[in-house]
């Protein structure tokens, strides 16, 4: 009687193991991890009928086929599916039919050794239910660096789409004129320069605190060119304090060109662009000091700013200057919006350079950007619609094929 009771308990606990015979895992494959710089191997195999809480997989690695093999992972057989890896559908089959395991290092004699590129490693798998064990055959692979990151395929496609859109519109803009909506801040530029001339006070133009490779600085320098042209015609003085040497030397060139094209090369002064310091707050202190002493009638803050935005514009406001700001530093926009007379918000800064210069290339770019925005809006629309539809119908699996194209990996 007692033995039957024991057998019953045993059957209850180990029922699964009895019902499913352990067999060696099928379709075991080792391969270099795709889309990476190397040093990682993957192991995949088919999910088996005995996969459950009670059956464990143990993965072993060795540097030679004969061993010694080192254990590198042990986990429940109902985990580690290919579906766990959040990779896009075009690069990885997210399925619960196959298991996968990632190996980047192993522990040998108490030390963790990373996998080496180009070196062949041997892997095997052990299935155990705590009583019985079944071994797989030994498979091998070597890690290597890959040449294309397939996960970034949608990124590449987006880049190509944007490139085509923008270049196409630039080419088209050269042929015919485009419409641009009004930007009030820009209408005010003329007024500001005019006022400075009347009052006989200088104009301050700041190009932001980023280097020449940032888009906002480039836009800022183009605007500087246009402003300088007007300043030269009116015969006012412009001062551009700098915080980056390369931006300074580019701006010198641009200001000079502006004076030449306005027909006033004689009025150009080499030291209208001058360097203060690279350091954020000493630059700010110096510019604040200059503004309070020279009392400019107009201040332009174009480009990228950090905390100095309010320090500059509030001092500008206190001396009663007309202030026009433009920045794509979205964290500083609130301060410019509240303290300046006019503010170019985000992309408007880029638009401003096109608007002022009436340059067909810049106008075409703007048009291209608009189409790009339309494209993104379309993507958001379709994506959201599909995601909602997928949730309602429960067909998320199919929908995710499309949604993956809108995701970053």
């Amino acid at each position, binding site marked *: 009687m007692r033995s039957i009771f024991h057998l019953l308990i045993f059957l209850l606990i180990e029922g699964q193991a009895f019902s499913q015979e352990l067999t060696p895992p099928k379709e075991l494959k080792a391969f270099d991890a795709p889309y990476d*710089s190397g040093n990682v191997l993957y192991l995949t195999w088919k999910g088996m009928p005995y996969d459950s809480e009670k059956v464990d997989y143990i993965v072993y690695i060795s540097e030679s086929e004969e061993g010694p093999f080192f254990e590198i992972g042990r986990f429940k057989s109902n985990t580690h599916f290919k579906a766990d890896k959040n990779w896009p559908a075009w690069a990885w089959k997210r399925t619960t039919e196959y298991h996968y395991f990632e190996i*980047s*290092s192993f*522990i040998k004699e108490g*030390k*963790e050794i*990373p996998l080496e590129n180009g070196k062949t490693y041997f892997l095997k798998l052990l299935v155990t239910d705590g009583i019985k064990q079944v071994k797989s055959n030994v498979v091998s692979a070597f890690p290597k660096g890959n040449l294309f990151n397939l996960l970034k395929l949608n990124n590449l496609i987006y880049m190509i789409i944007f490139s085509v859109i923008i270049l196409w519109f630039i080419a088209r803009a050269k042929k015919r004129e485009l419409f641009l909506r009004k930007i009030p801040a820009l209408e005010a530029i003329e007024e500001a320069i005019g006022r400075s001339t009347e009052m006989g006070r200088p104009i301050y133009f700041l190009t932001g605190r980023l280097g020449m490779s940032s888009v906002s600085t480039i836009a800022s320098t183009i605007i500087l060119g246009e402003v300088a042209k007007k300043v030269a015609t009116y015969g006012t003085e412009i001062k551009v304090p700098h915080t980056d040497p390369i931006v300074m030397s580019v701006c010198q060139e641009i200001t000079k060109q502006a004076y030449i094209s306005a027909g006033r090369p004689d009025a150009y002064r080499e030291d209208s662009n001058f360097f203060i310091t690279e350091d954020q707050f000493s630059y700010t202190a110096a510019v604040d000091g200059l503004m309070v002493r020279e009392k400019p009638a107009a201040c332009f803050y174009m480009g990228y700013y950090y905390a100095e935005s309010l320090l500059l514009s509030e001092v500008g406001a206190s001396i009663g200057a007309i202030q026009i700001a433009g920045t794509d530093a*979205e*964290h500083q926009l609130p301060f410019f919006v509240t303290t300046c007379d006019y503010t170019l918000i985000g992309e408007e800064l880029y638009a401003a350079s096109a608007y002022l210069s009436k340059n067909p290339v810049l106008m075409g770019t703007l048009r291209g950007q608009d189409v790009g925005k339309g494209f993104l809006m379309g993507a958001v629309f379709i994506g959201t619609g599909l995601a909602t539809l997928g949730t309602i119908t429960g067909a998320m699996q199919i929908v995710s094929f499309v949604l993956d194209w809108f995701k970053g990996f």
Partner: protein
Amino acid sequence: MRKIANILLNLDRRIIFLLIAAAVLVPLLRPFNLPGISISQPVKGVYDKIESLAPGDVLFISMDFDPTAKPELYPMGISILRHAFSKDLRVICMTLWAPGVGMAEEVMSKVAREYHKEYGKDYAFLGWMPGQLTVIIGLGQDLKKTFPKDFYGNKTDRLQIFENINSLRDIDYMVDLAAGDPGIETWYLYGKEKYGFELGGGCTAVIAPGLYPFLQTGQINGLIGGMRGAAEYETLLNRKDKATVGMDVLSTTHFLIIGLVILSNIFYLITRKGKTVR
């Protein structure tokens, strides 16, 4: 009435400055110890992640700030380290901001002393290295090659803590305490996106709103924003410190500004009403 309103609307800025100074100094000299503060989800994100780590797991911290951001980020660094050391995590710290080295070192050694942690075994300080993104990418490829020596000149491959850590892939969590650029976005773009570690952040209150989009998409799993965030973390740890004291000052100054704005609007309405009547 309108005259007074007009005068008050054009109040000398210096009077406002004086009021602000008073609003800061009074609670500083006589703290009122305001009641406890609520915990926001983003702060909890960082806390929960550290809480979920097991003893011996590796927390990587980059203290990317300089002394100007000290009031906000220093208490954060202290709290996170306290949390990590109390959970017996192994902590590796560095900075991408050259001027921040001295302070990062101070935070690290101060808290380590508090918890009697052993250098090289329980924690390490890598210091600073020029190159910003070069450093991040280098850490992602090979930590010991990027930092052959730690801040104190010890060889990293000799330190016990680095035994099983070859790159950023081997860390369990990374927290970036940042005051600007390079900061959380840099670590995301050049680090997390490639090497796939879990990233959390702490930052000054100024950049925090801009990081909400990243938070929502899970690009960062948590965010401690400003002194308020630091005070929340102190509350979570049950160890009130400097940030909590600062909360009094924030309360008085904020209420002062709110009062000023409401007053100025009342004055404004009064002057405007007059105009429409006329």
